[in-house]
């Protein structure tokens, strides 16, 4: 059974009386443990596709299955629960909560799903922060962290609950090349060590090089789907 399966997924946005198609029928299968990138010119529908896969939005037409379960026609509440337990997100602008420390930002995600002992949660959060290279920075607030460090917190937040799938929408777009490389390397490392499936969108050729699979979107359709290594 594939982790993710999309069949004829279409998304049409209504702008007044005009219908704007963002996805024109996407078929895609993603297996557990893949490290894939979705790329294409601006406006080709990568973000829309990620939103569909991430259960943040529902398709106008077509079917999406996650772990074999159809998620394309779930209620808002059921979609929220699917995101909570199965999907991690990394955003371009980090979206960390400024009043929480790095530790608390990560803790926040795991608290939503894990109600085990304080000690276990603490161990898990410190472990993931160490893995993303933030040991010693746990008590810093986002305004005390660099862009690269903030994005690492966001990655730790996405990974702490050990989701099957992590979606990253241009995770390195706000970072310089060194930080961008570091962040992608962390994602590669987590993919290898935890077997977490990563799908990320990017325009950065340097970042793309790390991917195992390239999904090229053009005008809302997959124009190329290649694997490497």
């Amino acid at each position, binding site marked *: 059974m594939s982790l993710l399966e999309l069949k004829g997924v279409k998304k049409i946005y209504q702008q007044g009386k005009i219908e704007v198609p963002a996805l024109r029928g996407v078929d895609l299968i993603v297996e557990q443990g893949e490290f894939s990138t979705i790329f294409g010119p601006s406006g080709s529908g990568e973000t829309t596709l990620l939103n569909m896969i991430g259960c943040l939005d529902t398709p106008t037409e077509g079917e999406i299955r996650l772990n074999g379960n159809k998620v394309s026609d779930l209620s808002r509440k059921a979609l929220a629960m699917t995101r909570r*337990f199965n999907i991690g997100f990394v955003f371009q602008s980090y979206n960390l909560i400024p009043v929480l420390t790095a530790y608390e930002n990560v803790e926040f995600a795991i608290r939503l799903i894990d109600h085990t002992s304080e000690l276990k949660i603490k161990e898990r959060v410190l472990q993931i922060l160490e893995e993303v290279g933030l040991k010693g920075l746990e008590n810093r607030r986002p305004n005390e962290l660099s862009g690269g460090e903030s994005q690492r917190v966001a990655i730790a937040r996405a990974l702490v609950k050990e989701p099957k799938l992590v979606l990253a929408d241009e995770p390195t777009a706000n970072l310089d090349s060194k930080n961008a490389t570091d962040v992608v390397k962390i994602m590669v490392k987590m993919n290898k060590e935890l077997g977490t499936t990563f799908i990320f969108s990017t325009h950065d050729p340097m970042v793309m090089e790390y991917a195992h699979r390239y999904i090229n979107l053009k005008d809302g359709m997959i124009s190329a789907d290649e694997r490497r290594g």
Partner: protein
Amino acid sequence: MFSFKLGLKNLTRQKRRNVITIMVIAFAFFGYLFMDSVMGGMEEMSFSNIKNYDTGNIQVAYPEYWEDREKLPLENLIYLNQDIVDSIKNMDGILGVSPELRFKANLNNGIDETVVLGLGISPEQYNEVFATQNYIIEGSMFSPGESKAVIGVKLAELMDLKINDYITLLVRTKEDTFNTIDVEITGLLNTPNPMINNGVVFVPLDIAQQALNVDNGFSLLALKTASGDEDKIGKVLMDSFKDKDLELQAYSWRESAESIIALSTAKKGGIGTILSVVLLIGMIGIINNVILSALERTGEIGMMKALGMREWEIVFVFMVEATGIGILGGLAGCLIGFAGVGLMAKYGFGFNVMGIDISEYGIPILDKIYGTWNYPAFSFLFILSVTVALLSSIVPAYWAAHKDPVKAIYHR
């Protein structure tokens, strides 16, 4: 619970706005508590002035007289032998009994004339019921049988009178013929009850009875009791009158103070209006705060939704924050209110400083008004502030939490 912790931590964001909202709520609460205290003090002093200088705690009269009492009739007067008066005086809980003969009179100083309320009293008995004699600021009280009078300073000023001046009271007798009472002013009063100071002339009861040709009749008996015992003692008195086949009735001071009580009721309405305004201010503050916070944190809300938080969980975060503001605003309001009411209760406030004579508005208070402590108002207001904050945050918080996750995440 992490959402609770996050809600509390969010209180530290936008400090200036939160502090302003808290202060607005606090000052609105202070305004309410202060007004409530002033109004309470005004009511308490009004009632006290009525009881201590005008009506006593209970008045005993015939129902026919009572109905017409505003007209000061000389009909339906009480004619009792001293034994009955003494038996009333000896009843449990009664601290003093004073017969009063109330009559209409025109005071003439030889040049001008003004309408006054004549009050025939027996000084010794009157002293047992009323505190009026403590406020003689010049001269002294008369003795029975003396052709002397005591008047208020305001009336003296109005009629240009002083101690030892002679005045003439033009009265109508029981038979509706004219008569006069010529008396020398022996004392000037300045009581806390402006009604007494402005328009009452005290004369010895026997002098008044003689002039009005009512034998030993009097209008009513004013009784002093322990405060709060009026109803209980009134009932005992009524039973006693029934046993003696007397048709007399006992009336609580409240029945003589209907207009003041009406003012007091209006005050409660006024306080209710103030409370509504206070709540409205609190609600607007909280709603404004939640909406602005939601707008500023749209991206964050999107992230929360991406993490899988359900709408009510996001609502809860905002509600904790709003309730925190309500609690802080309520506490600050209670603290400032405590200080304000404390100052008001200790030092009072004289409307005359502002050139206002509140007695002109029918409130029988001359001096300063002292605030009263209404402790339940503090706890009531605090609980209300928390409840209002909690409730008024629900709709805007739900509005925030209901945002489309995609639009929220990519909001700029």
